[in-house]
């Protein structure tokens, strides 16, 4: 197969390619949202003053969660989720929730540690000031500390997001269905094409790589914009 023929072939199935890209991004986006929420909650639990038993127990659970999730490979987690925990989802007509939840839980553990480090970097005087005007601990955290912490950890969070977007390629090991029809993510499509038209395999790999690269470049752009917006309360150097 000549080069131009390959290009024409890929172009002819562009609908499939973009659809698979969309699925990859959908999984990543869902996982980021879930991971961010879990991350903030876990970070708050880890950081909360251990004044009562409930907080202590929750803290132990959070520690266990972070240890287990960070200590096992993503693919193993995804497969466990697919064939053991959310097994009833496996046979649903739309089972995209499985990878979203799996990646969300995975990313939550990393986000928790990232956000915790951000909260720790905020001056303790900010918490004291918030408490001294009569705000509760949670309000102080949500209104004063977390906004400042997020600003510090934006680069690290985007690091995690970028890793997550690329890691969604692991989803090609499970059979995805949406509305009863089998769907592929970007890498899964490559494998599918390897079977359908082996000569285009390498070309599809390059296409997938290029598309991932473009997504990451866009994410970097978004990161820059967010950083710029968040630095309005800083003195210009």
């Amino acid at each position, binding site marked *: 197969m000549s080069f131009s023929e390959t290009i024409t072939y890929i172009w002819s199935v562009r609908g499939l390619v973009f659809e698979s890209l969309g699925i990859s991004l959908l999984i990543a986006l869902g996982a980021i949202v879930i991971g961010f929420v879990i991350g903030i909650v876990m970070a708050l639990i880890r950081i909360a003053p251990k*004044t009562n038993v409930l907080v202590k127990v929750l803290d132990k659970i959070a520690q266990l969660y972070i240890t287990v999730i960070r200590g096992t490979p993503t693919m193993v987690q995804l497969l466990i989720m697919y064939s053991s925990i959310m097994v009833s989802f496996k046979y649903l007509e739309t089972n995209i929730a499985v990878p979203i939840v799996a990646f969300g839980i995975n990313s939550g553990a990393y986000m928790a540690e990232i956000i915790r480090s951000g909260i720790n970097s905020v*001056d303790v*005087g*900010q918490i*004291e*000031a*918030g*408490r*001294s*005007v*009569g*705000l*509760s601990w949670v*309000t102080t955290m949500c*209104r*004063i500390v977390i*906004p*400042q912490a997020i*600003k510090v950890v934006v680069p690290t969070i985007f690091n995690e997001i970028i890793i997550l977007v690329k890691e969604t390629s692991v989803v090609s090991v499970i059979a995805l269905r949406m509305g009863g029809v089998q769907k592929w993510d970007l890498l899964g499509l490559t494998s599918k094409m390897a079977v359908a038209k082996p000569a285009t395999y390498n070309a599809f790999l390059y296409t997938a790589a290029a598309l991932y690269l473009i997504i990451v470049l866009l994410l970097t752009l978004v990161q820059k914009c967010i950083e710029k917006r968040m630095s*309005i*309360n*800083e*003195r210009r150097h």
Partner: protein
Amino acid sequence: MNDATENAKNTQEIETREPLIDVRYLTKKFGDLLVLDEISTKIYAGECVVIIGPSGGGKSTFLRCLNVLEDPTAGEIFFDGDDLTDLKIDINVCRQKMGMVFQQFNLFNNLTVLKNITLAPIIVGKKRLRAAKRNNRKMTSYNKWLAKNKDKIYARVDSKIAKNKRIIEENNALLAPVEVEWEKTKQTIERKGKLLTTYDPKLTKQKLKLVTKIENAERVVDRTHYPEPKTYIQPEYANKKEIVKAAEKNAMRLLERIGLVDKANVYPSTLSGGQKQRIAIVRALAMNPKVMLFDEPTSALDPEMVGEVLDLIKQIAEEGMTMVIVTHEMGFAKEVGSRVLFIDQGKIAEDNTPKELFENPQNPRLKEFLSKVLM
């Protein structure tokens, strides 16, 4: 003679008045380090108490204990009738009545100056509005329910109080012989030139257990009341918009007072130290506190900016605000303070009017301290 009687009258008046802050045997330990050693003092409304002393003597810790930013190890702090060391009270509501100004300003870096000042009043205002609405909504049905089940509920309260009183009696009876035994095991030993008193640890434990039981039961008795019917609460503001508007208006008024209206919408990082500290003071004032606590308000400032901050504090003092100030500015202490406490090695070593304390110090440590500071 006339003066003397007048003075006596005044002191008597002060004695009979209810103190705003009543500190009883306040002790704070950081690990094994004893920072505050059974401090007791009373602060009355309208007083301006200045705390001086060598660094590491515990004056900042004392101030921070007053609004429980540091948890006291032992002792009680009564503020406005509430025991702040009691974990059951809502400390946030109490703190709303105490403004605090920090050495490092601690303005909220992520908020503009205006939002810094209005944040707490708005949140607290909304909370009060919600509480009032909830109360008014549930009032009728609750009162009906209460009237219907009055006998049952009152009987339950009675039995609870009776039960706890019985616990107190029983434990008191148990405690008496233990205490006698415990006294008998008293031993005085000398270590490193200090006299230490020791008791039998087993008995001490037993005694502490009983005392805690009694104290807990007493607390329950104190806190158990007959439920009262709910009354209509008139909300201060009709809706959230009005709360925001009122808070902003108040903030602008305060900013105008310190001459920083044009800084309302800038972020704290662009301000000078003196401006930051004045805004921090105004932020505390915006909550209409009953007492203001200042923790070395001028220590982190450039010398040229100390004046403007001290002037503001002086103005507030003249308006009759109750204040507790930890400071190293002796001239300021002399001028503003109505009472000066000298805290050294965790104890109030001297407590007197500024004139007496500075001109006629009694405590040798105070003499030494003043000779160093006033040089």
